[in-house]
């Protein structure tokens, strides 16, 4: 059975939304997390709303459906699945550059097809820059989120396993970590992407495989500490099995680290993708690619500045907001402040 990509994408997004729903329900039910979330909200309203805006754009750009395209629109394939964001900008394509809100073409001075509608101008192919920037949000979230979903479980599997069970497995994990750490990260990334072929998934897998080491070390160290605590001994003395101890006593006490790592890793990964785009092996439609494409346009006379400006601002806005939230999360979830709060 062959499922069309856009349907798969819709389903995955739906599943993710349901997952987020469960997460919210859990946070609301659990007093510790509920209080942490409340503190976080009271401290970083603007940043959280900004991240929320990016998320909303990303989600709106994830549900696609076919049909409903007017006959006279020529710049999309007939019967292509389009998202809400696509539909908002249907048929706004120009022949070439347009400055923001310009009435005529930037080079040549021909009248535009849609004068005064391009809030952020168009690129060399006449595509609306605002549209491209909005499309980039989904790609950025996908890279950050999917890669974290690959890297963090990998790190936990190896880190907690090595820390808890020790022995041979610990040696093996440390061998793996040392080996990965001794290879130049960027080179390894490029190699992996070359081997797997370009594409969103392979970029995410490559980034994931190269970025789990740090958190693995952290979770191993934390597990080493936790497994010696008396509530772990007490659980054993009560006859709790080893896997149950890991699930019930080790992982929940790593949860704050997982959240902090996820948020801080996220922004780093989005930036890494920009670097990969600059090397020409990034993900299609990312802000990194927009910036890469706009590099050459900076050498034109007069300069095309709105292209790189929009992509850079969008990227900067997301990273700044995520980092600000991440910082606050670290403060709120710090074990000391968590324990001492009444």
């Amino acid at each position, binding site marked *: 059975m062959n499922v069309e990509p856009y349907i798969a994408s819709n389903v995955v997004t739906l599943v993710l939304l349901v997952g987020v729903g469960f997460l919210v329900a859990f946070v609301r039910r659990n*007093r*510790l997390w509920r209080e942490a979330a409340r503190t976080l909200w009271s401290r970083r309203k603007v940043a959280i709303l900004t991240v929320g805006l990016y998320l909303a754009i990303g989600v709106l750009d994830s549900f696609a459906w076919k049909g409903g395209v007017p006959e006279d629109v020529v710049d999309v394939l007939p019967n292509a699945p389009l998202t809400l964001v696509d539909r908002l900008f249907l048929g706004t394509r120009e022949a070439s550059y347009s400055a923001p809100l310009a009435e005529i073409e930037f080079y040549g001075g021909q009248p535009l097809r849609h004068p005064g509608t391009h809030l952020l101008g168009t690129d060399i192919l006449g595509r609306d820059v605002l549209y491209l920037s909005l499309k980039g949000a989904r790609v950025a979230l996908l890279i950050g989120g999917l890669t974290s979903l690959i890297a963090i479980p990998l790190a936990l599997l190896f880190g907690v396993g090595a820390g808890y069970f*020790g022995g041979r497995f610990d040696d093996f994990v440390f061998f793996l970590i040392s080996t990965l750490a001794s290879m130049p990260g960027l080179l390894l990334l490029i190699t992996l992407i070359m081997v797997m072929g370009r594409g969103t998934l392979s970029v995410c897998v490559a980034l994931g495989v190269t970025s789990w080491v740090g958190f693995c070390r952290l979770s191993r160290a934390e597990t080493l500490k936790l497994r010696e*605590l*008396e*509530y772990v*001994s*007490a*659980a*054993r*003395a*009560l*006859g*709790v*099995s080893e896997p149950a101890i890991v699930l*019930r*006593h080790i992982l*929940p*006490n790593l*949860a704050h680290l997982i959240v902090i790592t996820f948020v801080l890793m996220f922004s780093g990964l989005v930036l890494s993708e920009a670097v990969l785009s600059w090397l020409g092996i990034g993900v299609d439609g990312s802000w990194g690619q927009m910036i890469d494409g706009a590099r050459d346009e900076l050498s034109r006379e007069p300069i095309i500045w709105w292209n790189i400006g929009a992509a850079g601002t969008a990227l900067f806005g997301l990273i700044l907001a995520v980092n600000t939230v991440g910082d606050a999360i670290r403060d709120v979830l710090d*074990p000391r402040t968590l*324990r*001492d709060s*009444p």
Partner: protein
Amino acid sequence: MSALLEVRDLRTTFPSSKRSAGPDDGLPVVDRVSFDLSSGEVLALVGESGSGKSMTALSILRLVPKPGRVVAGEVRLGGENLLDYPVTEMRRVRGTRISMIFQEPMTSLNPVVTAGAQVIEAIQLHDSIGYADARARTRELFVEVGIPDPDARLDAYPHQLSGGLKQRVMIAMALSTRPEILIADEPTTALDVTIQAQILALLRDLQRTRNTAILLITHDLGIVNELADRVAVMYAGRIVEVAERTQLLSNPLHPYTQGLLRSIPARSAAGDRLPEIPGTVPPPSQWPSGCRFSTRCPARFEPCADVMPEELRPAGGRRVWCHDVARNTNPQTDEHGEEEA
């Protein structure tokens, strides 16, 4: 009368890197430890730090931390040797038949799970009962261990509880499946004095009402006097003397027990220097081949450092391992030296 728990010649060792020449299997932190625990009895295991008290308890539960292991002996619970049990069987024994509470109540509860939930989980681990029933039983247990305002405490996180309350929660958890034996490893050491008294009173009450046998591990002879029926004194991995509490406290036979009792502050007159046992427990690698206490013993003589003393059984069901006691007792006291040298 057959005992509920019979420990026979228990030996737990840790591999030693230094003594590679030795034919043996490492350093014996618990060495030929034997004792009985009857139903409803409180047996105190007394000794200095490093004497192997906690290791004895962990050996009984087969929870000796790696790389240590139990290499010999028997732990008979109701006649069956726990050391022969498969791992899953053993896991059922822990919690249902033998429970343990620990020294440090501050860290013996999981900080991210509410106190009630932890006890509920302990109950549901061994009993297949629903959440509501388990919660009701937890509430009863909280009342039984004297936790005020049990309904609020059920949903309290450990950091919202005081040390004494945490220890009560731990006791509730350990008792949740009605074990026959409760091992209490220095249950009051980390608590302040008034709370200590309350916890001891609680243990005494529970032991009486539930007829639970308690293996009490402590270095505090005051606690022994409060709670214990019988006392086993441990030194450097071996039991040196076993006696009824009153006998032991009024008429100690072993020089080590005598030294311990002399160094209780209340027993010396004000202004005098507090008597002490000179030196410290030597590390396992430096234990003498004879009586382990011989390096510090005021009554040592010729064979002490080289020959391990045999078990003596003076009147009153006592047991003591000491050359000096053997020399001083009359020949009519029969010596049941156990077979091995």
